[in-house]
């Protein structure tokens, strides 16, 4: 029951639209139910609930670029449709995999920052899992470089740490 009503409302052209304004000043029209998935937009809409005409509302999202928003919006929309149906977790997992598989490391980071700022926790969880998967078998040096982290151990301190846990350094991938 819930699935048919929800999917029809999502595809319905009469669905109310909200305007999101990106950090680079672009205006993006989205369905209200998608906008409500973004915590800052939800808060903004609640604060401006006396406004009769949703179409007139422009929600500023000063931390997210239009490029990132335009990737997030279709993801959230489809994910909402999927989770409204009584589908198996497997299907949602397959959808998430398809979304994240081709993301560059840089795009992955951008989406993570956006998902964190927008409070889209289910996406954040997926992105963190993907990031963890990409670095788990990498060398310490690779991860430092990848994440721009300064090594503040002395060579002696680092050697001691490595000696304490030799098993952890077995089977490291080529960088």
């Amino acid at each position: 029951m819930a699935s048919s009503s929800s999917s029809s409302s999502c595809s319905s052209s009469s669905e109310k639209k909200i305007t999101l304004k990106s950090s680079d000043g672009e205006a993006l029209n989205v369905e209200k139910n998608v906008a409500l998935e973004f915590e800052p937009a939800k808060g903004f809409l609640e604060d401006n609930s006396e406004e009769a005409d949703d179409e007139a509302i422009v929600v500023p999202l000063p931390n997210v670029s239009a490029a990132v928003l335009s990737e997030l919006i279709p993801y959230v929309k489809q994910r909402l449709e999927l989770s409204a149906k009584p589908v198996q977790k497997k299907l949602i997992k397959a959808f998430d995999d398809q979304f994240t598989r081709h993301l560059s490391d840089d795009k992955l980071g951008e989406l993570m920052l956006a998902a964190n700022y927008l409070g889209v926790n289910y996406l954040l969880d997926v992105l963190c899992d993907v990031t963890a998967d990409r670095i788990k078998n990498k060398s310490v040096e690779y991860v430092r470089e990848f994440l721009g982290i300064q090594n503040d151990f002395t060579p002696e301190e680092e050697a001691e740490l490595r000696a304490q846990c030799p098993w952890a350094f077995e089977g490291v991938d080529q960088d």
Partner: protein
Amino acid sequence: MSSSEAVASNDGLLTEILVHLPIKSLMKFKCISKHWQSLISSPGFSRRLYPDSHLVSGLILRPTYDCVIKKEYDFVPLKYTSTTAPFRSLTFVNHPSGLIILQSCNGLLLCASSISDWNIPCEYCIYNPTSHEFVTVPPLGDENSRFIRRIGLAYDPAKSSHFKIVCIRSDSLEVIQNAGISYQIEVYSSQTGSWRLSGVPFVLPYNSQYGAGVFWNGAIHWISHCHACLCFKVDEEQLQEMPMPPLTRDPADRIEGFMRSFVYFGESREHLHFVVNVDNHSKKFDVYEMQRDYSGYFVKYRVDLDVIIAAFPEMDVPSDEDDFLFFYAFDCYKYSILGIIREANDEESYMVLHIPGKVIRYKLNDKTFTKICDFHPGHEDVEGSQLEFTRLHAYHYMETLARFG
């Protein structure tokens, strides 16, 4: 700054990524920077990974008879999601006689070398089987360490990352006024990194038994079949005798009472359990729990193995062994209690029972049981009612990354 760098400089996001990493990667990435090291070793992070610090993920089992030769451990997973054995043997210290486990305490294992030979000074290590980190404990003076009779690890990560090791050693084997021999307590503190004497020597009946303790309620407890059961309050450094649950219900029934005796002693989720046989056929027992103020025990659960024996007739000893076993009422059925495990929801609390070829989870409240795994530990050609494992050799595997040392 790249987006990845921005992510890495946000501790909230970084923590979210780290919780998705396997333990091996976490141990490796402690080397990334001091900040990563402190994040991964923080108590908060360990709680994120393992929210239930009392959860027993599995039992590490040491075969009773081949421990000295092979020193290979078996593992029984207890979580409903799969858990793999943390190790097969303890090889992190290259000790000529190898290492064996003496005690498990809140995620750490107290390990020792060469306890099989009293004349060789023993070395001790503290090992976290989750992270595979370990620290070695400096030995007592050679002359003293060979007379260690009781030992115990005290570690409570909710209170401190420091641990203590308490040992009771005999000064010499000379009997004093027919009362026993002189003992001395020594305590090792990881905070100071050294051993020191605690209190003055005292006299107890000679007890050749060597035993590791059970840590509960801020104290280490040692039980004995034929001597006083002892309890050492670690912070106060007080040794006292521990009350026992009633082993004999009828005073006229002393011999049978002795035969009943206890079959299990252990801690789980801050409860101290003591399991006592209450019939002649070793089918029924009571699980006692100690009051926190040591005022006494109360019966927490009653167990009757009838339904399990009916489901697994192989537990019944063949009748031609009856005569031989006449005086050993315990051994009428083939089983051994590997653990009494309390869950956050007491309805889920269970007993781990080893029967021939299997390990069983028996729910202590609703008395239902399920097979955990098929299990043929050690040598399969061993016949008779002696199972290869007793509770003395089953150690809790509790996953934690909490700091220690």
